[in-house]
């Protein structure tokens, strides 16, 4: 489903080149639940960005559902994301001017689908069936993240990337979100890639990649 080889990322800074990721290779099977863990600054988010095609690597290659990302231009990668990838962010990243329902519809609309029934059903599924017309500012953090989950699943993605999805939430709300996310994941048979520094959360994954200083430190399957 997802494979990367010799992935290296570096940024040019004032004094020289800063290597954030070095020589990372692994593969994820369809339906797998993978957690990427590591301390702050270990390169977790950079890796996630490269895997999802949000950025180009300095070296190496990523294959998403068999497609090599480096051969695609930005719009092609955007189209690929729209078709196969879902995202959940730490800060929810809802569009403040759109209602909950409209936010869930955005990825569908970008593909030209304007029927709101799927978005509505998803909001029902995440328990927000009665709040479809609310704006993000009118929702609590947990509710916003549930809207974000509904949005992530709206296009029936093959793979879901989640970046610290509970980072901004209290423990109980966070647990509820993880519950919901893994449930949806199971129902849809989606591959799940989760970035976190929360060991409890990572413990729920069947496979854990541990990063340190931009290198792959360990790859354990439970």
């Amino acid at each position, binding site marked *: 489903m997802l494979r990367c080889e010799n992935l290296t990322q570096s940024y040019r800074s004032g004094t020289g080149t800063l290597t954030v990721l070095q020589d990372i290779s692994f593969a994820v099977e369809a339906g797998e639940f993978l957690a990427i863990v590591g301390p702050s600054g270990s390169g977790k*988010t*950079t890796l*996630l*960005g490269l895997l*999802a095609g*949000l*950025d*180009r690597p300095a070296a190496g290659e990523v294959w998403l559902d068999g497609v090599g990302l480096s051969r695609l231009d*930005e*719009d092609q990668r*955007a*189209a*690929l*994301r*729209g*078709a196969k*990838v879902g*995202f959940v*962010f*730490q*800060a929810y*990243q809802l*569009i*403040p*001017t*759109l209602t909950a329902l*409209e936010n869930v*519809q*955005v*990825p569908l*609309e*970008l*593909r030209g689908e*304007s029927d709101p029934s799927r978005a509505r059903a998803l909001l029902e599924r995440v328990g927000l069936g009665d709040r479809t017309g609310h704006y993000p*500012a009118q929702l609590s953090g947990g509710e916003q993240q549930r809207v974000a989950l509904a*949005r992530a699943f709206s*296009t029936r993605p093959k793979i879901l990337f989640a*970046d610290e999805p509970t980072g901004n939430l209290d423990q109980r709300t966070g647990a509820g979100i993880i519950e919901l996310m893994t449930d949806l994941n199971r129902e849809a048979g989606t591959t799940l890639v989760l970035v976190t520094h929360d060991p409890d959360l990572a413990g729920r994954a069947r496979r854990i990649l541990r990063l340190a200083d931009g290198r792959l430190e360990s790859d354990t399957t439970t």
Partner: protein
Amino acid sequence: MTLRALVQLAWREGRASRRRLLLLVAAIATGTAALVAINSFTANLRTAVSAEARGLLGADLALASRSPPTEALRTLADSLACAGAIPCGDRATVTTFSAMGYIPTRTGVRLVRVTAVEGVWPFFGSITTTPAGTWPRLQAERVALVDPAFLTALGASLGDTLALGDLRLPIVGTVDHVPGDVGITTAFGPRVFIPGALVPETGLLGFGARAQYDTYLRLPTGTVVEAIADSLRPRLRPDRVRVRTVQDEQRNLGNALERMGRFLGLVALVALLLGGLGVASAVHVMIRQKMETIAVLRCLGGSSRQVFALFLIQAAGIGLLGSTVGAAIGLAVQQALPRVLGEFLPVTVTPTVSWPALATGLCLGVWTAVAFALIPLLGIRKISPLATLRRPYEAEARPSRDRWTIIATLALMLSVVLMAMVQAGDPLRGAAFAAGIGVALAGLWFSAFALVWGLRKSFPHRLAYVWRQGLANLYRPANQTVSVVLSLGFGTFLLATLLLVQHNLLRSLRVDGGSRRPNLILFDIQPDQAAGVDSLLHARALLPTPAVPLVPMRIQSVGGRTVQDYSRDTTEVDGRPAGWALRREYRSTYRDSVVGSERVVAGSWWGPGTDSAGAPVSISVEVGLAEELGVSIGDQITWDVQGVPIASRVTSLREVDWARFETNFFVVFRPGALEAAPQTLVTLVRVDSASERGVIQRAIVEQFANISALDLSTVQRALDDIFGKVGAAIRFMAFFTLAAGLVVLLGSLATSRAQRLRETVLLKTLGASRAQVTRVAVAEYLALGTLAALTGLVLALGSGWALARWLFETKFALPGASMLLLATGVVTLTVGVGLWSSVDLFRRTPLDALRNE
């Protein structure tokens, strides 16, 4: 905390958002530049006018009259020039009249203004000629000098022979500059300079010809000119001799130029105010975004007063930097102004820095930035340190309505009114201008508010997604819809108003309009020439209108009181006839029917036939003149028609459309009384082709030298030319306003940049292509630009209509095409600037969405 420390902190705090601050600096700079440029230039003009003052008149004193100087006047002039002093002063006589000038060996003819100079004039200032130094030849030789425009119009060159009536003179040079002369006036008729002694040889100043006779005097040094002028005026008034002095000239010219400068200055002020608006709106948003910084500062022990001072210092810094940059740009623009306005200036302006103008610009710039920033800044006091812990999501820093906010608002309004008053140089006009700005801004604000409100209330859910997203951005948190619509809309409003005024003024002066209307006027036809002219025109298959008689006359008495009575009586009483109306020369006609350009509004028009013998003749008076003379139906006026008194009675009042270039009259007589009086005739004819008009004018002038022909299409071209140039000068300043509007737009884009970036990148992460992201932006700017342009246009229609209706008193017409062009231009600019400033947003990789927050 010391001031020094505060300033330092303000600097550190501000440097992070340099791009945004730079745009605020630009917003203030644009207005300051316009203001400094125009005010400094006006100061230069003032200096130039007083430096060249004596040259404007060319003499110490001038005695002007419509009839040749009498022997008594000559004696008086000589005695004044000498006044017992040694050496004696000088005297010169300049006679000015219109005539047809042509070159016998070439085709074509031009109506020219003949200036016949007798004596060494001007006494002060110098006349520039090509070849240089040709001017004195007028005093000794039989030669002529002409405006370069005359040579161009007839395709003539130096050395050719000029024909003026019966006079033939070689053209030995062109006159390039006469002190006090405004370049643009040559558009109506180029000037021709001849020796004064040769005027009789032209044979042109016969009966009915109009000429002005100016006797110029140089008084012995030490003479108090004003005292002499004051004592001369009452003595010479009965003889209809006007006394002009250098001071009069300077005052009149100074006033006219001052008005022009002040008007343009007001336009510049608008640009500055728009910049202030941009500052206010940016500060408002900035405070909301800096809420955390502010809360942290408060947590660290800063008092709300200190934090407030911190940001106020930033605002003042922006104002100072902006106005300094603006002043520098303004001084550069000032160098260009003589080129834009040159044709209207009777003096040569050397651009030099006017320190008062510079200082005023700097002060107004800083003050505008501070005054406009003040109200949103007051919100800072409401931010509690608690915000560090919990950022309220709906962080709407509601404008509070406490005492300070009210004071700040009043201070802002008051300072705007004051600035307008100072710039207008007249409290009433300034207040009216401020009120006008207020109404326009209120209209724009309302329209922006209505859009946001309307979108919120009933969002067009059926639109395609990118459109919905773009429109939704108009009311996103921290949106600047209102400020952008205000500033762009105001720029549009100003430009559109100017276009409308120009169009309507020009249209009302459209003299060659209508394909059937006459376009050639022949005047000064002597009665014995009428038949000849008629047959000349008929021979060319042209159908002139029936010749209209013109009888020159003056008023002898109104309601039994003579003009002399009136002028001796200096008491000011309402309803007393105005001096000019009593003293002027009237050219009246007689006919038995009403013509198309007039309408009887009181009394009744006479029937066919004549008044009974012995009774006063019936006359019809133009409404405005009747008011000036204080006469109404039934009143008696006695006329002096070349020495013969003719009694008349007002039987009707007429409204006359003077803008129509036809033979219109203040006073029309019933037939029967004037037929035998000395008179000239006017006839109008339609000649379609321009070349034929030339041929006919030439044929007439060769056969009847004294007849003048006025080609209305030439007049039209001159009018178009003048209005075009006036329009260009005003637009030059108005563009600063539009520029200020665009800077505000850029500023607001920079302010909302972080949020735009987040959204753009998020959309891309969710699968949006670059084209889709671009289209969202296009939708937003298109809506913004369209709203601003349309509202600006609607407001301009209102003001243009009002100006046409009440100020220029013409019917209002809409130049659809140019309005559409302006609107399209504004929308295109808005979308263009919006996209241009977003280009790098679109380029960002979506990874940024994961980072940050």
